[in-house]
């Protein structure tokens, strides 16, 4: 089965060890994560993980349902490249010595929509946000000038679909109510099946 790149987005509660729980789902299937980022979402207390990996459709479906099974995960879903808008940020620390008699770096910054974050005696720091290919391209162009350090973040991604976290949370609330009713019925607290059927 053909492999392709997927972006997984997970909404979770903020609990210790959750990153470990999430990564276990991947490692036990011997899947290598390309990048992972996590931060608080637009809803206070709900954390958003963005995970990128290359795998098959079948694997990704299984992984996502196993992620959703985790007690503290609110929702997990996967997207193809064209279903998300995504970016990565890269920082480049470039040796000032190589820049002395040239305006090449200035040009590179300008043409690549990058910006200069810091100028020190020995080095400058450039920042570029974009697709991985773009930040990689700039890295290759800066290399002749002496890149002392290079760092790239994991992907952050937003979905194109119109359904947002708040509506998922409402759905979860409803699912919770149904679940409670079924539980009550199962515990013989009520005979009324109409409320969940």
């Amino acid at each position, binding site marked *: 089965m053909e492999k392709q790149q997927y972006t997984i987005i997970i909404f*979770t*509660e903020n609990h*210790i*060890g959750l990153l*470990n*729980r999430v990564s*276990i789902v991947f490692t*036990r299937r011997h899947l290598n994560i390309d990048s992972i980022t996590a931060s608080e979402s637009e809803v206070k207390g709900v954390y958003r993980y963005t995970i990128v990996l290359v795998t098959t459709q079948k694997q990704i*479906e*299984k992984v996502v*349902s*196993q992620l*959703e*099974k985790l*007690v*503290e*995960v*609110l929702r997990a879903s996967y997207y193809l490249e064209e279903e998300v808008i995504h970016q990565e940020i890269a920082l480049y620390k470039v040796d000032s010595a190589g820049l002395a008699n040239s305006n090449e770096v200035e040009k590179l910054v300008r043409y690549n929509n990058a910006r200069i974050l810091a100028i020190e005696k020995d080095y400058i720091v450039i920042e570029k946000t974009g697709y991985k290919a773009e930040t990689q391209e700039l890295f290759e162009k800066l290399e002749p000038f002496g890149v002392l350090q290079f760092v790239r973040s994991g992907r952050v991604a937003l979905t194109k679909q119109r359904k947002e976290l708040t509506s998922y949370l409402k759905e*979860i609330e409803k*699912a*919770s109510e*149904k*679940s*409670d009713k*079924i*539980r009550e*019925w*199962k515990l013989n607290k009520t005979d009324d*099946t109409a409320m*969940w*059927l």
Partner: protein
Amino acid sequence: MGIKMRGSMAVIQSLLAEHVDTIFGYPGGAIMPIYDDLLQHEDKIHHILVRHEQGAAHATQAYSQVSGKVGVCFGTSGPGATNLITGIANAQIDSVPMVVITAQVPSPLIGTDAFQETDVVGLTMPITKWNVQITDAEDIPEAIAKAFYIAVSGRPGVVVIDITKDALLNQLEFEYEKAPKIRSYFPYPAINMQSIDAAAELINKSKKPLVLLGHGVLIGKAENLFREFVEKAEIPVASTLLGLSAFPSSHKLFVGMLGMHGNYAPNIKTNEADVIIAIGMRFDDRVTGRIADYARQAKIIHIEIDKSEINKNIEVNVAVHADVKTALTALLPKIQANAHSSWLNEFKELEAIEIEKVIKKECTPESGKIRQGEVVHLLSEKTKGHAILVTDVGQNQMMGARYFKFENPNSLITSGGLGTMGFGLPAAMGVSVVVKDRPVIAFLGDGGIQMTIQELGTIMQENLAVKIVVVNNNFLGMVRQWQDMFMSKRYAATHMVTPDFIKIAEGYNIKGRKVEKREELSAAIDEMFATEGSFLLEVMVEKEGNVFPMITPGASVSEIVLE
């Protein structure tokens, strides 16, 4: 405002709030405050001191399965906790609820490789439904309330709570709320009526339906509903290992066990059925054989509470994501009464072949050494299916599952998913704590009993009645069978010299008897059941007996062989 108390007392009070009356465990440095406070509540909670924490975990699991409650066990930090791990993994993979409480070194020492420190949360994360470490006394009641709720609801599993010693010693205001709301956890999915309609339509039109009965029927307490369903539609019932006893073995619709050492008919017919209704089971590889040739001709309906099990191993046509009881309640009114007598007869024809070629030789041989199946057959006949059978793992397990006739739910306790040797004796001990009105049989091999034989001490101390049957072939029988069949009889590390089990039992004040001759077997079994309390019956059996039929590894269910 709650009542002021220390953390360890809050553990006890929380357990009392959950109506816990039995705990299996083993004390040690870090957990001592809990034990100290338990002493004041000995009238309400009976603590059973095991001989090794693995025994505690297996006993707790079995206790959960037969009592219908959530079993609880205690272990101290470090080795106490690591010794529990096999039992935790075993219960988790077989979806049995269990709350495990371990103590941890004081929080300032965490991460310093302190004496008896081990990262219990990290170690048990992949083998639990949920786990948590508590470092603040105030968090204890809520964590325990969540633990009980999570362990038993939805697809049940194990919850581990690791509590630091300082949290046990610090004061808190105790308040307890059962089943607290957990926003991200909604264990019972709402019924999708479209899936129910689609399932009903397939079932009603089916000419050759087959039900695969799984553990979910027992877990969901849906045995009666299940029976109504299969009787109404007249569908043959084949069971997984863990589904056994949910449906009477004597029922005319019962066609036997599925899988590698299951019965001939249900395996063959899996590849002839037009509609397969899988209920609360997960298409384990031991059930499916070669996936590529599993039931390709059939439309498959899968009723399953755990969404991640749907389409995991087998792609299905209709997925009913729901608890079995809920699903069958919704499905039953839409099922038409039906008859499938000629289809049922096809099972009978194949069953007759299996009886002739396998079962007669195994269960009622007239010459040669005693056979394992023969022992199970006699145990079953003499208890009239009224006993609870607890097996170990290997040939004894398959023989027990194949030849014991079950009439009551939850009458087979066995290690399914993990296949844990050493499970049988402590599990039987856990059963015997609850079940007093029916015989509890531990059916073990000579290898398995020696893995956890120390629990004879617990059985002695607690005056428990376990009828221990050891079928001794001086071999690790199942591995030897594979060596016989697939490795040209190269018996690497499977021959085992066994001790004098009767003397060992005697040392623990347990009566015993060893049988080598067929003529003595029946009387010895009678003596065992007539003896008050525990009894160890050692039966010397055929050394190189094999379990058949068999779907050899990599073969399809329809390629099952009889010899």
